[in-house]
Protein backbone atom coordinates (compact mmCIF):
# COMPACT_ATOMS: atom_id res chain seq x y z
CA UNK A 1 0.00 0.00 0.00
CA UNK A 2 2.72 2.39 1.04
CA UNK A 3 6.33 1.69 0.31
CA UNK A 4 9.26 3.78 1.51
CA UNK A 5 12.78 3.07 0.27
CA UNK A 6 16.01 4.67 1.47
CA UNK A 7 14.28 7.91 2.36
CA UNK A 8 16.48 10.85 3.38
CA UNK A 9 15.29 14.32 4.29
CA UNK A 10 17.21 17.38 5.37
CA UNK A 11 16.12 20.70 6.81
CA UNK A 12 19.08 22.82 5.79
CA UNK A 13 22.08 20.91 7.07
CA UNK A 14 20.16 18.91 9.61
CA UNK A 15 19.18 15.45 8.53
CA UNK A 16 15.73 14.74 9.92
CA UNK A 17 15.20 11.38 8.26
CA UNK A 18 18.04 8.98 7.61
CA UNK A 19 17.66 6.00 5.31
CA UNK A 20 14.11 5.02 6.23
CA UNK A 21 12.67 1.84 4.77
CA UNK A 22 9.20 0.56 5.45
CA UNK A 23 6.34 -1.29 3.90
CA UNK A 24 2.72 -0.89 4.87
CA UNK A 25 0.58 -3.76 3.63
CA UNK A 26 -3.03 -3.34 2.62
CA UNK A 27 -5.45 -3.57 5.55
CA UNK A 28 -2.89 -3.45 8.31
CA UNK A 29 -2.36 -0.95 11.11
CA UNK A 30 1.20 0.26 10.91
CA UNK A 31 2.81 2.16 13.78
CA UNK A 32 5.63 4.70 13.68
CA UNK A 33 6.92 5.28 17.21
CA UNK A 34 9.55 7.51 18.70
CA UNK A 35 10.11 10.42 21.05
CA UNK A 36 9.15 13.89 19.98
CA UNK A 37 11.51 15.28 17.37
CA UNK A 38 12.31 11.84 16.03
CA UNK A 39 10.94 12.74 12.59
CA UNK A 40 7.82 10.60 12.71
CA UNK A 41 5.37 13.32 11.69
CA UNK A 42 7.70 14.41 8.89
CA UNK A 43 7.84 10.83 7.65
CA UNK A 44 4.04 10.66 7.70
CA UNK A 45 3.79 13.88 5.68
CA UNK A 46 6.20 12.51 3.08
CA UNK A 47 3.66 9.74 2.48
CA UNK A 48 0.90 12.08 1.28
CA UNK A 49 3.09 14.72 -0.27
CA UNK A 50 2.63 17.42 2.37
CA UNK A 51 6.40 17.36 2.77
CA UNK A 52 9.01 16.90 0.12
CA UNK A 53 12.20 14.87 0.50
CA UNK A 54 15.62 14.96 -1.09
CA UNK A 55 16.54 11.32 -1.54
CA UNK A 56 14.85 7.95 -1.77
CA UNK A 57 11.44 6.91 -2.94
CA UNK A 58 7.96 6.94 -1.48
CA UNK A 59 5.29 4.95 -3.28
CA UNK A 60 1.68 5.27 -2.20
CA UNK A 61 -0.94 3.04 -3.79
CA UNK A 62 1.40 2.28 -6.62
CA UNK A 63 2.44 5.83 -7.56
CA UNK A 64 5.68 7.63 -6.83
CA UNK A 65 4.61 10.55 -4.60
CA UNK A 66 7.49 12.80 -5.67
CA UNK A 67 6.50 12.48 -9.33
CA UNK A 68 3.10 14.07 -8.68
CA UNK A 69 2.19 17.72 -8.54
CA UNK A 70 -0.86 19.92 -8.91
CA UNK A 71 -4.13 18.11 -9.50
CA UNK A 72 -2.64 14.62 -9.56
CA UNK A 73 -1.07 15.18 -6.13
CA UNK A 74 -4.31 16.60 -4.77
CA UNK A 75 -6.12 13.57 -6.15
CA UNK A 76 -3.73 11.26 -4.27
CA UNK A 77 -4.17 13.30 -1.08
CA UNK A 78 -7.94 12.98 -1.37
CA UNK A 79 -7.58 9.20 -1.30
CA UNK A 80 -5.59 9.37 1.95
CA UNK A 81 -7.45 10.68 5.01
CA UNK A 82 -5.52 12.32 7.81
CA UNK A 83 -6.22 13.07 11.48
CA UNK A 84 -4.18 15.28 13.78
CA UNK A 85 -3.10 15.69 17.38
CA UNK A 86 -4.86 19.05 17.71
CA UNK A 87 -7.82 17.90 15.60
CA UNK A 88 -7.43 20.90 13.24
CA UNK A 89 -11.14 21.45 12.86
CA UNK A 90 -12.71 24.72 11.78
CA UNK A 91 -13.75 26.13 15.13
CA UNK A 92 -16.46 28.40 13.78
CA UNK A 93 -18.28 25.70 11.86
CA UNK A 94 -20.56 23.04 13.24
CA UNK A 95 -19.87 19.31 13.26
CA UNK A 96 -21.81 18.69 10.05
CA UNK A 97 -19.98 21.39 8.07
CA UNK A 98 -16.59 20.17 9.27
CA UNK A 99 -17.27 16.64 8.09
CA UNK A 100 -18.79 17.90 4.84
CA UNK A 101 -15.78 20.14 4.13
CA UNK A 102 -13.61 17.69 2.09
CA UNK A 103 -16.68 16.62 0.14
CA UNK A 104 -17.53 20.22 -0.72
CA UNK A 105 -13.94 20.72 -1.91
CA UNK A 106 -14.32 17.86 -4.33
CA UNK A 107 -17.96 18.47 -5.20
CA UNK A 108 -19.00 15.03 -3.96
CA UNK A 109 -22.66 14.01 -4.37
CA UNK A 110 -25.13 13.14 -1.58
CA UNK A 111 -23.28 15.12 1.07
CA UNK A 112 -26.12 15.03 3.55
CA UNK A 113 -26.57 11.25 3.61
CA UNK A 114 -22.85 10.56 3.63
CA UNK A 115 -22.15 12.96 6.52
CA UNK A 116 -25.00 11.57 8.61
CA UNK A 117 -23.75 8.04 7.91
CA UNK A 118 -20.25 9.03 9.04
CA UNK A 119 -21.50 10.77 12.18
CA UNK A 120 -23.48 7.62 12.97
CA UNK A 121 -20.28 5.60 12.59
CA UNK A 122 -18.30 7.77 15.03
CA UNK A 123 -21.23 8.10 17.43
CA UNK A 124 -21.92 11.81 17.05
CA UNK A 125 -25.19 11.67 15.09
CA UNK A 126 -26.97 13.77 17.70
CA UNK A 127 -24.38 16.52 17.65
CA UNK A 128 -24.39 17.32 13.95
CA UNK A 129 -25.54 20.90 14.44
CA UNK A 130 -23.32 21.66 17.44
CA UNK A 131 -20.38 23.98 17.17
CA UNK A 132 -17.04 22.23 17.29
CA UNK A 133 -15.78 24.63 19.99
CA UNK A 134 -18.23 23.15 22.48
CA UNK A 135 -17.08 19.54 22.08
CA UNK A 136 -14.72 17.57 24.30
CA UNK A 137 -11.32 16.43 23.01
CA UNK A 138 -12.51 12.90 22.31
CA UNK A 139 -15.55 14.16 20.42
CA UNK A 140 -13.39 16.56 18.40
CA UNK A 141 -11.17 13.66 17.34
CA UNK A 142 -14.28 11.69 16.33
CA UNK A 143 -15.27 14.61 14.12
CA UNK A 144 -11.71 14.55 12.74
CA UNK A 145 -12.02 10.84 11.97
CA UNK A 146 -15.41 11.31 10.30
CA UNK A 147 -13.95 14.15 8.21
CA UNK A 148 -10.94 12.03 7.23
CA UNK A 149 -13.26 9.25 6.06
CA UNK A 150 -15.55 11.56 4.09
CA UNK A 151 -13.87 10.97 0.74
CA UNK A 152 -13.72 7.18 1.17
CA UNK A 153 -9.93 7.07 1.48
CA UNK A 154 -7.98 3.84 1.20
CA UNK A 155 -5.45 4.89 3.83
CA UNK A 156 -5.88 6.78 7.09
CA UNK A 157 -2.84 8.67 8.37
CA UNK A 158 -2.94 9.42 12.11
CA UNK A 159 -0.55 12.05 13.42
CA UNK A 160 -0.37 11.65 17.22
CA UNK A 161 -4.13 11.22 17.10
CA UNK A 162 -4.48 10.36 20.78
CA UNK A 163 -1.67 12.39 22.33
CA UNK A 164 -3.91 15.24 23.46
CA UNK A 165 -6.48 12.93 25.03
CA UNK A 166 -6.82 11.38 28.49
CA UNK A 167 -6.21 7.60 28.84
CA UNK A 168 -9.88 6.62 28.83
CA UNK A 169 -10.72 8.72 25.78
CA UNK A 170 -7.56 7.42 24.09
CA UNK A 171 -8.87 3.86 24.52
CA UNK A 172 -12.25 4.73 23.03
CA UNK A 173 -10.64 6.42 20.03
CA UNK A 174 -8.34 3.40 19.55
CA UNK A 175 -11.36 1.10 19.67
CA UNK A 176 -13.00 3.23 17.01
CA UNK A 177 -9.90 3.08 14.79
CA UNK A 178 -9.75 -0.67 15.32
CA UNK A 179 -13.41 -0.99 14.25
CA UNK A 180 -12.79 1.12 11.18
CA UNK A 181 -9.77 -0.98 10.25
CA UNK A 182 -11.78 -4.20 10.54
CA UNK A 183 -15.10 -3.13 9.10
CA UNK A 184 -13.99 -0.78 6.35
CA UNK A 185 -10.76 -2.70 5.61
CA UNK A 186 -8.94 0.60 5.84
CA UNK A 187 -5.15 0.67 6.01
CA UNK A 188 -4.00 2.84 8.94
CA UNK A 189 -0.61 4.42 9.56
CA UNK A 190 -0.27 5.66 13.14
CA UNK A 191 2.41 8.03 14.30
CA UNK A 192 2.67 8.20 18.08
CA UNK A 193 5.02 8.48 21.03
CA UNK A 194 2.67 6.41 23.17
CA UNK A 195 3.94 2.82 23.48
CA UNK A 196 0.54 1.74 24.80
CA UNK A 197 -1.13 2.83 21.58
CA UNK A 198 1.25 0.80 19.46
CA UNK A 199 0.93 -2.30 21.58
CA UNK A 200 -2.81 -2.08 21.61
CA UNK A 201 -3.39 -1.47 17.92
CA UNK A 202 -0.46 -1.84 15.54
CA UNK A 203 0.23 -5.05 13.64
CA UNK A 204 3.73 -3.97 12.72
CA UNK A 205 5.82 -0.97 13.52
CA UNK A 206 8.85 1.15 12.86
CA UNK A 207 10.70 2.70 15.76
CA UNK A 208 12.49 5.97 15.08
CA UNK A 209 15.05 7.86 17.10
CA UNK A 210 16.43 11.15 15.83
CA UNK A 211 15.55 10.29 12.26
CA UNK A 212 17.11 6.82 12.30
CA UNK A 213 15.41 3.46 12.37
CA UNK A 214 15.88 1.72 15.71
CA UNK A 215 13.74 -1.31 15.06
CA UNK A 216 11.08 -2.50 12.69
CA UNK A 217 8.96 -5.60 12.32
CA UNK A 218 5.91 -7.32 13.75
CA UNK A 219 4.82 -5.64 16.99
CA UNK A 220 4.52 -8.75 19.14
CA UNK A 221 7.92 -10.13 18.18
CA UNK A 222 9.61 -6.78 18.69
CA UNK A 223 8.30 -6.36 22.22
CA UNK A 224 9.05 -9.94 23.21
CA UNK A 225 12.62 -9.77 21.99
CA UNK A 226 13.63 -6.15 21.72
CA UNK A 227 17.01 -5.10 20.41
CA UNK A 228 19.36 -3.25 22.72
CA UNK A 229 18.57 0.18 21.25
CA UNK A 230 14.90 -0.54 21.43
CA UNK A 231 14.96 -1.52 25.11
CA UNK A 232 16.57 1.83 25.81
CA UNK A 233 13.47 3.47 24.46
CA UNK A 234 11.00 1.08 26.02
CA UNK A 235 11.91 1.31 29.69
CA UNK A 236 9.77 0.13 32.57
CA UNK A 237 8.74 2.70 35.06
CA UNK A 238 9.71 0.53 38.01
CA UNK A 239 12.53 1.44 40.34
CA UNK A 240 14.83 -1.54 40.25
CA UNK A 241 16.51 -2.87 43.36
CA UNK A 242 20.20 -2.02 43.67
CA UNK A 243 21.38 -5.43 44.92
CA UNK A 244 20.79 -8.83 43.32
CA UNK A 245 19.77 -9.45 39.74
CA UNK A 246 16.61 -8.00 38.25
CA UNK A 247 14.96 -10.27 35.71
CA UNK A 248 12.05 -9.34 33.54
CA UNK A 249 9.81 -12.25 32.63
CA UNK A 250 7.24 -12.28 29.88
CA UNK A 251 4.32 -14.63 29.69
CA UNK A 252 2.50 -15.13 26.42
CA UNK A 253 -0.95 -16.63 26.82
CA UNK A 254 0.07 -20.29 26.58
CA UNK A 255 2.57 -19.88 29.39
CA UNK A 256 0.37 -17.63 31.52
CA UNK A 257 -1.84 -20.63 32.17
CA UNK A 258 0.91 -22.48 34.03
CA UNK A 259 2.08 -21.54 37.53
CA UNK A 260 5.68 -21.16 36.42
CA UNK A 261 6.82 -18.72 39.10
CA UNK A 262 5.66 -20.64 42.15
CA UNK A 263 6.85 -23.85 40.57
CA UNK A 264 10.31 -22.35 40.10
CA UNK A 265 10.47 -21.22 43.71
CA UNK A 266 9.56 -24.66 44.98
CA UNK A 267 11.69 -26.70 42.63
CA UNK A 268 14.81 -24.56 43.13
CA UNK A 269 14.03 -24.00 46.79
CA UNK A 270 14.92 -20.32 46.69
CA UNK A 271 13.31 -17.04 47.65
CA UNK A 272 13.07 -13.95 45.50
CA UNK A 273 11.21 -10.68 45.66
CA UNK A 274 8.76 -9.28 43.15
CA UNK A 275 9.61 -5.76 41.95
CA UNK A 276 6.56 -5.21 39.81
CA UNK A 277 4.33 -6.65 37.19
CA UNK A 278 1.51 -5.85 34.86
CA UNK A 279 -0.71 -7.18 32.18
CA UNK A 280 -0.30 -5.66 28.75
CA UNK A 281 -2.60 -5.89 25.83
CA UNK A 282 -1.11 -6.62 22.42
CA UNK A 283 -3.76 -6.44 19.72
CA UNK A 284 -6.14 -9.17 20.84
CA UNK A 285 -3.68 -10.92 23.14
CA UNK A 286 -2.85 -10.25 26.75
CA UNK A 287 0.70 -10.74 27.96
CA UNK A 288 1.82 -10.84 31.57
CA UNK A 289 5.03 -9.13 32.66
CA UNK A 290 6.80 -9.70 35.93
CA UNK A 291 10.05 -8.27 37.24
CA UNK A 292 11.67 -10.34 39.97
CA UNK A 293 14.78 -9.71 42.01
CA UNK A 294 16.97 -12.73 42.64
CA UNK A 295 19.93 -12.78 45.07
CA UNK A 296 23.16 -13.06 43.08
CA UNK A 297 23.86 -16.46 44.63
CA UNK A 298 20.83 -17.96 42.92
CA UNK A 299 21.17 -16.15 39.64
CA UNK A 300 22.61 -19.01 37.61
CA UNK A 301 20.11 -21.51 38.94
CA UNK A 302 17.20 -19.25 38.04
CA UNK A 303 18.54 -18.45 34.58
CA UNK A 304 19.09 -22.16 34.00
CA UNK A 305 15.53 -22.89 35.00
CA UNK A 306 14.17 -20.18 32.67
CA UNK A 307 16.29 -21.55 29.86
CA UNK A 308 14.94 -25.07 30.33
CA UNK A 309 11.34 -23.96 30.44
CA UNK A 310 11.57 -21.86 27.30
CA UNK A 311 10.45 -18.61 28.81
CA UNK A 312 10.92 -15.08 27.43
CA UNK A 313 13.23 -13.35 29.84
CA UNK A 314 15.57 -10.44 30.07
CA UNK A 315 18.20 -9.50 32.67
CA UNK A 316 17.90 -5.86 33.61
CA UNK A 317 20.81 -3.72 34.73
CA UNK A 318 20.26 -0.78 36.97
CA UNK A 319 22.29 1.35 34.59
CA UNK A 320 21.10 0.01 31.32
CA UNK A 321 17.80 -1.77 31.24
CA UNK A 322 17.85 -4.92 29.18
CA UNK A 323 21.19 -6.33 28.16
CA UNK A 324 20.10 -9.59 26.64
CA UNK A 325 17.00 -11.43 25.76
CA UNK A 326 16.50 -15.09 25.14
CA UNK A 327 13.88 -17.65 24.82
Amino acid at each position, binding site marked *: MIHVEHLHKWYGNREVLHDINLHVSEGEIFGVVGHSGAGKSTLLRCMNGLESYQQGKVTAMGVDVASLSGTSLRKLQSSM*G*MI*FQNFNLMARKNVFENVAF*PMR*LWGAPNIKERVNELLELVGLAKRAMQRVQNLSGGQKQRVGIARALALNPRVLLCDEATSALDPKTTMSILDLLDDINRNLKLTIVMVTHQMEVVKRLCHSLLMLDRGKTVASGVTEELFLSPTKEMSKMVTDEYTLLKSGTNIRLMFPRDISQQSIITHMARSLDIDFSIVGGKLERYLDDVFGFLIINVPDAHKDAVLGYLENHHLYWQVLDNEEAGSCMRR
Partner: protein
Amino acid sequence: MHETIIHLGAWAEPLWTRFLEKLPEILQATWETLDMVFLSTVFSMFFGFILAIWMIVTNPLGLRPCPAVYRVLDFVVNLLRSFPFIILLIAIIPITRFIVGTSIGSAAAIVPLTVAAAPFVARLIETCFLEVDRGVIEAARSFGASNTQIIFRVLIPEALPSIVLNVAVVAITLLGYSAMAGTVGGGGLGDLAVRYGYNRFQVDIMVYAVIILCILVLLIQGVCNLLYKVLR
Protein backbone atom coordinates in the same frame (compact mmCIF):
# COMPACT_ATOMS: atom_id res chain seq x y z
CA MET B 1 -31.29 81.00 43.75
CA HIS B 2 -33.93 82.31 41.43
CA GLU B 3 -31.59 84.92 40.11
CA THR B 4 -28.91 82.39 39.27
CA ILE B 5 -31.27 80.38 37.11
CA ILE B 6 -32.40 83.48 35.24
CA HIS B 7 -28.78 84.46 34.85
CA LEU B 8 -27.87 81.04 33.46
CA GLY B 9 -30.81 81.21 31.11
CA ALA B 10 -29.66 84.54 29.85
CA TRP B 11 -26.23 83.05 29.22
CA ALA B 12 -27.59 79.94 27.49
CA GLU B 13 -29.91 81.79 25.15
CA PRO B 14 -27.36 83.05 22.62
CA LEU B 15 -25.76 79.58 22.63
CA TRP B 16 -29.08 78.02 21.77
CA THR B 17 -29.83 80.48 18.96
CA ARG B 18 -26.36 80.00 17.59
CA PHE B 19 -26.84 76.20 17.68
CA LEU B 20 -30.09 76.49 15.72
CA GLU B 21 -28.48 78.90 13.34
CA LYS B 22 -25.50 76.59 12.66
CA LEU B 23 -27.47 73.32 12.71
CA PRO B 24 -27.70 73.00 8.90
CA GLU B 25 -23.96 73.51 8.67
CA ILE B 26 -23.30 70.94 11.40
CA LEU B 27 -25.54 68.38 9.69
CA GLN B 28 -23.86 69.10 6.37
CA ALA B 29 -20.43 68.54 7.98
CA THR B 30 -21.63 65.30 9.61
CA TRP B 31 -22.85 64.06 6.25
CA GLU B 32 -19.53 64.94 4.60
CA THR B 33 -17.64 63.08 7.30
CA LEU B 34 -19.82 60.00 6.96
CA ASP B 35 -19.43 60.13 3.22
CA MET B 36 -15.63 60.37 3.36
CA VAL B 37 -15.23 57.72 6.07
CA PHE B 38 -17.63 55.24 4.52
CA LEU B 39 -16.25 55.42 1.00
CA SER B 40 -12.61 55.48 2.01
CA THR B 41 -13.20 52.51 4.36
CA VAL B 42 -14.81 50.54 1.55
CA PHE B 43 -12.05 51.39 -0.95
CA SER B 44 -9.18 50.84 1.46
CA MET B 45 -10.69 47.53 2.61
CA PHE B 46 -10.93 46.46 -1.01
CA PHE B 47 -7.35 47.33 -1.94
CA GLY B 48 -5.98 46.29 1.46
CA PHE B 49 -7.70 42.92 1.16
CA ILE B 50 -6.10 42.24 -2.21
CA LEU B 51 -2.69 43.28 -0.90
CA ALA B 52 -3.13 41.09 2.21
CA ILE B 53 -4.01 38.04 0.14
CA TRP B 54 -1.05 38.68 -2.11
CA MET B 55 1.22 38.91 0.92
CA ILE B 56 -0.14 35.78 2.62
CA VAL B 57 0.32 33.78 -0.58
CA THR B 58 3.88 34.95 -1.23
CA ASN B 59 4.91 34.87 2.44
CA PRO B 60 8.02 32.64 2.86
CA LEU B 61 5.81 30.30 4.91
CA GLY B 62 2.78 30.94 2.74
CA LEU B 63 0.72 28.98 0.25
CA ARG B 64 3.05 29.62 -2.67
CA PRO B 65 6.20 31.13 -1.16
CA CYS B 66 7.86 33.82 -3.24
CA PRO B 67 10.19 35.70 -0.89
CA ALA B 68 11.22 38.32 -3.49
CA VAL B 69 7.64 39.47 -4.17
CA TYR B 70 6.85 39.35 -0.48
CA ARG B 71 9.81 41.55 0.39
CA VAL B 72 8.75 44.17 -2.16
CA LEU B 73 5.14 44.21 -0.92
CA ASP B 74 6.29 44.32 2.66
CA PHE B 75 8.56 47.28 1.90
CA VAL B 76 5.86 49.22 0.02
CA VAL B 77 3.40 48.71 2.85
CA ASN B 78 5.93 49.89 5.42
CA LEU B 79 6.89 52.86 3.27
CA LEU B 80 3.33 54.07 2.74
CA ARG B 81 2.52 53.58 6.40
CA SER B 82 5.46 55.68 7.52
CA PHE B 83 4.23 58.80 5.64
CA PRO B 84 2.60 61.31 8.01
CA PHE B 85 -0.95 61.61 6.66
CA ILE B 86 -0.85 65.38 6.25
CA ILE B 87 2.23 65.11 4.02
CA LEU B 88 0.73 62.29 1.96
CA LEU B 89 -2.40 64.38 1.54
CA ILE B 90 -0.46 67.14 -0.15
CA ALA B 91 2.08 64.95 -1.91
CA ILE B 92 -0.51 63.04 -3.91
CA ILE B 93 -2.58 66.04 -4.99
CA PRO B 94 -1.66 65.46 -8.67
CA ILE B 95 -2.89 61.87 -8.45
CA THR B 96 -6.06 63.00 -6.71
CA ARG B 97 -6.67 65.57 -9.41
CA PHE B 98 -6.13 62.89 -12.06
CA ILE B 99 -8.64 60.53 -10.47
CA VAL B 100 -11.47 62.82 -9.30
CA GLY B 101 -10.72 65.88 -11.42
CA THR B 102 -10.33 68.21 -8.45
CA SER B 103 -8.22 68.39 -5.32
CA ILE B 104 -10.83 70.15 -3.18
CA GLY B 105 -13.88 68.77 -1.43
CA SER B 106 -14.80 65.53 0.31
CA ALA B 107 -14.72 63.49 -2.91
CA ALA B 108 -11.10 64.54 -3.37
CA ALA B 109 -10.29 63.65 0.24
CA ILE B 110 -11.30 60.05 -0.36
CA VAL B 111 -8.24 59.42 -2.57
CA PRO B 112 -5.53 60.27 0.01
CA LEU B 113 -7.61 58.63 2.75
CA THR B 114 -7.72 55.41 0.74
CA VAL B 115 -4.03 55.57 -0.15
CA ALA B 116 -3.14 56.09 3.50
CA ALA B 117 -5.44 53.41 4.86
CA ALA B 118 -4.97 50.63 2.27
CA PRO B 119 -1.48 49.55 3.48
CA PHE B 120 -2.69 49.81 7.06
CA VAL B 121 -5.63 47.56 6.19
CA ALA B 122 -3.28 45.18 4.35
CA ARG B 123 -1.16 44.81 7.49
CA LEU B 124 -4.17 44.31 9.75
CA ILE B 125 -5.75 41.69 7.51
CA GLU B 126 -2.42 39.96 6.96
CA THR B 127 -2.20 39.60 10.74
CA CYS B 128 -5.73 38.16 10.84
CA PHE B 129 -4.72 35.61 8.19
CA LEU B 130 -1.52 34.72 10.02
CA GLU B 131 -3.56 34.03 13.14
CA VAL B 132 -5.61 31.36 11.38
CA ASP B 133 -4.56 28.00 12.83
CA ARG B 134 -1.89 26.56 10.51
CA GLY B 135 -3.18 23.11 11.44
CA VAL B 136 -6.54 23.83 9.84
CA ILE B 137 -4.78 24.90 6.65
CA GLU B 138 -2.68 21.74 6.73
CA ALA B 139 -5.81 19.66 7.25
CA ALA B 140 -7.42 21.26 4.19
CA ARG B 141 -4.25 20.54 2.23
CA SER B 142 -4.27 16.92 3.38
CA PHE B 143 -7.70 16.54 1.75
CA GLY B 144 -6.29 17.85 -1.48
CA ALA B 145 -7.55 21.45 -1.28
CA SER B 146 -6.04 23.81 -3.88
CA ASN B 147 -4.55 27.15 -2.85
CA THR B 148 -7.59 29.04 -4.13
CA GLN B 149 -9.85 26.76 -2.10
CA ILE B 150 -7.69 27.29 0.97
CA ILE B 151 -7.91 31.08 0.59
CA PHE B 152 -11.64 31.26 0.01
CA ARG B 153 -12.88 28.34 2.09
CA VAL B 154 -10.46 28.32 5.00
CA LEU B 155 -8.47 31.52 5.39
CA ILE B 156 -11.17 34.11 4.75
CA PRO B 157 -14.03 32.39 6.61
CA GLU B 158 -11.79 31.58 9.59
CA ALA B 159 -10.34 35.10 9.76
CA LEU B 160 -13.67 36.85 9.18
CA PRO B 161 -14.55 37.67 12.82
CA SER B 162 -11.22 39.36 13.49
CA ILE B 163 -11.35 41.13 10.11
CA VAL B 164 -14.71 42.60 11.16
CA LEU B 165 -13.17 43.87 14.40
CA ASN B 166 -10.40 45.45 12.36
CA VAL B 167 -12.93 47.23 10.14
CA ALA B 168 -13.83 49.21 13.25
CA VAL B 169 -10.15 50.07 13.80
CA VAL B 170 -9.83 51.22 10.17
CA ALA B 171 -13.06 53.24 10.12
CA ILE B 172 -12.22 55.00 13.38
CA THR B 173 -8.68 55.78 12.21
CA LEU B 174 -10.14 57.18 8.99
CA LEU B 175 -12.54 59.29 11.04
CA GLY B 176 -9.49 60.87 12.65
CA TYR B 177 -7.71 61.28 9.30
CA SER B 178 -10.82 62.84 7.73
CA ALA B 179 -10.55 65.70 10.22
CA MET B 180 -7.10 66.43 8.77
CA ALA B 181 -8.42 66.17 5.24
CA GLY B 182 -10.80 68.96 6.23
CA THR B 183 -7.93 71.38 6.56
CA VAL B 184 -7.23 71.19 2.83
CA GLY B 185 -10.84 71.83 1.93
CA GLY B 186 -12.22 68.35 2.40
CA GLY B 187 -15.03 69.57 4.63
CA GLY B 188 -16.48 67.46 7.42
CA LEU B 189 -16.70 67.72 11.19
CA GLY B 190 -12.98 68.14 11.77
CA ASP B 191 -12.96 71.08 9.39
CA LEU B 192 -15.97 72.58 11.19
CA ALA B 193 -14.34 72.22 14.59
CA VAL B 194 -11.14 73.89 13.43
CA ARG B 195 -12.86 76.74 11.59
CA TYR B 196 -15.20 77.73 14.41
CA GLY B 197 -13.49 76.51 17.54
CA TYR B 198 -9.88 77.31 16.71
CA ASN B 199 -10.07 80.19 14.25
CA ARG B 200 -13.15 82.04 15.57
CA PHE B 201 -13.07 81.02 19.24
CA GLN B 202 -16.61 79.67 19.06
CA VAL B 203 -15.87 76.81 21.43
CA ASP B 204 -19.49 75.61 21.50
CA ILE B 205 -19.48 74.67 17.81
CA MET B 206 -16.25 72.74 18.32
CA VAL B 207 -17.83 70.91 21.25
CA TYR B 208 -20.79 69.87 19.10
CA ALA B 209 -18.44 68.54 16.44
CA VAL B 210 -16.48 66.58 19.01
CA ILE B 211 -19.64 65.15 20.57
CA ILE B 212 -20.84 63.96 17.17
CA LEU B 213 -17.41 62.42 16.44
CA CYS B 214 -17.57 60.63 19.80
CA ILE B 215 -21.01 59.23 19.00
CA LEU B 216 -19.76 58.07 15.59
CA VAL B 217 -16.79 56.27 17.15
CA LEU B 218 -19.03 54.56 19.68
CA LEU B 219 -21.49 53.56 16.97
CA ILE B 220 -18.84 52.11 14.64
CA GLN B 221 -17.21 50.15 17.46
CA GLY B 222 -20.56 48.98 18.81
CA VAL B 223 -21.81 47.70 15.45
CA CYS B 224 -18.54 45.88 14.74
CA ASN B 225 -18.47 44.31 18.20
CA LEU B 226 -21.99 43.07 17.67
CA LEU B 227 -21.11 41.61 14.28
CA TYR B 228 -18.04 39.95 15.79
CA LYS B 229 -20.17 38.27 18.45
CA VAL B 230 -22.59 36.98 15.84
CA LEU B 231 -19.83 35.68 13.54
CA ARG B 232 -17.52 34.15 16.11
